[in-house]
């Protein structure tokens, strides 16, 4: 059965590109654009990996990550965090909160694909 990736991102064209490259690689891709309801969405159908943007409407990626790590069901869920802000403090914040991998935009498709494959192994 194909592994599931949930892309939480509010830029529709980025969602479309990521969805396309992951789908072509055999992943089942789900998407979600609203930060406020993201944790409910994850709890309802837990994916094998989350690609999480930092700046989201309603609730930031950092807050979503914190909630994930505080919940026993999702505490070990791999999270690849994407941000347009590459400052050290954002990276440190993500690491403190327990991110699995941190990637700054603009990323290459190959980088994303490689990371997803590395983070979710059979």
């Amino acid at each position: 059965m194909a592994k599931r990736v949930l892309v939480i991102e509010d830029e529709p064209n980025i969602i479309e590109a990521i969805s396309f490259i992951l789908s072509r690689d055999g992943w089942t891709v789900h998407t979600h654009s609203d930060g406020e309801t993201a944790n409910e969405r994850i709890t309802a159908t837990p994916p094998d990996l989350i690609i999480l943007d930092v700046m989201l409407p309603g609730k930031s990626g950092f807050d979503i990550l914190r909630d994930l790590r505080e919940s026993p069901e999702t505490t070990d869920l791999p999270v690849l965090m994407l941000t347009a802000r590459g400052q050290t403090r954002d990276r440190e914040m993500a690491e403190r909160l327990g991110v699995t991998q941190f990637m700054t935009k603009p990323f290459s498709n190959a980088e994303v694909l490689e990371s997803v494959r590395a983070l979710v192994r059979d």
Partner: protein
Amino acid sequence: MVQRQLTGSRIRERRVDLGIRQTDLANAVGISASYLNLIEHNRRRIAGKLLNDLARAMQVDPSALTEGAETALLDQLRASAARDRASGAEVSRTEDFAGRFIGWASLVVRQDKRIDELEARVKVLTDRLAHDPQLATSLHEVISSVTSIRSAASILVSDDDIDRDWERRFHRNIYEDSQRLAEASRALVSYLDAPSEEGTASLSPQEEVETYLDAQGFHLPYLEGDGAPQRAPMLRSKAASALLADYRTRYLADAETMPLKEFSAAAIEVGHDPALLAGRFGVPLAAAMRRLATLPIESGHPAFGLVICDAAGAITLQRQVSGFGLPRAAAACPLWPLFRAFSQPMQPIRRDVQLPVDGGGRFRCYAIAAPAGAASFDAPATMEAVMLVRSVAPSGGPADPVGTSCRICPRSGCRARREPSILNEDAV
């Protein structure tokens, strides 16, 4: 000491301004031209009768030759040395340096000030880059567009058997994102090209207000008339304009309760005693002190300094008076009556203070700490201390020894010292 050395430079300056030959001035006061030359080059001490004679011959008050700017210059030079102790600046010879090379000394001070301004500007720009929400949004927009374009373009280039629909969709996405990128870039450029606040970005809002008020002599004629007061001028930064508006509100209230014409006459009549003026006009002492500091000097009033601070000791407004250095960056001398007032709220304090300079540096200070603003049952009073400063003759009566700030104060054995002095290693 500096007073004698710099006094020489002042004598020379005044003489040259008046177009008097050295020989003629020397003859007028009964000394040789060569001796006057030594005085003018700060090689001979001058005081007492000879100083008075020279002052009289040049139609100037003796104090104008001995007090004033040089004290501030020396304080600034010492502060410059304190910033960079590793430079090995000969602090003990500051007076000598300033006395003999006043132009170079002024240059050092000006450049140090410029460094301060530039450092402040760098900080402002750094803060702006790191925290400005508008800039962050613009950059986010640019990076998001670039990310999207890069991903879509990469798919189109590397995927040979892409479905026709997907191909069209990614072409459309690239087109949309390129438009978005163009707009975001334009917005970013126009934001970065916005008129800079050159010259004021380096000033704090408080400094901006004080610079403006200083240029007006702290007297605002447009708030004194009977007609409707004009609006406060806009300063460059919004924060400074807001502070100025607060100052203006208080100024207006003081001007209404102490009209200029009546207050000016009464001030001269009572020798500028703030307590007598407060009683006569039925206003709080602090208000009378503030009002005295706004009287125009050209109307025969002495120059007053004014310092206002909050209960945390932060100086919220200051008007400089010649010879009494008010530190901007460093903490002020805790022995000032201004701070003492907080230990005796509502109790007026009048003290003569002596700064550590020869031949001058004596000031009369009036201070009081009192609640600022309206009283409330629901919140503690916000206290504020006000100190009015006036230069007095060097001789006569005891005076409290005070300084400007610890780093440039040479006093030994000071019970209030908070850090060593760069002027006197024994001053601990």
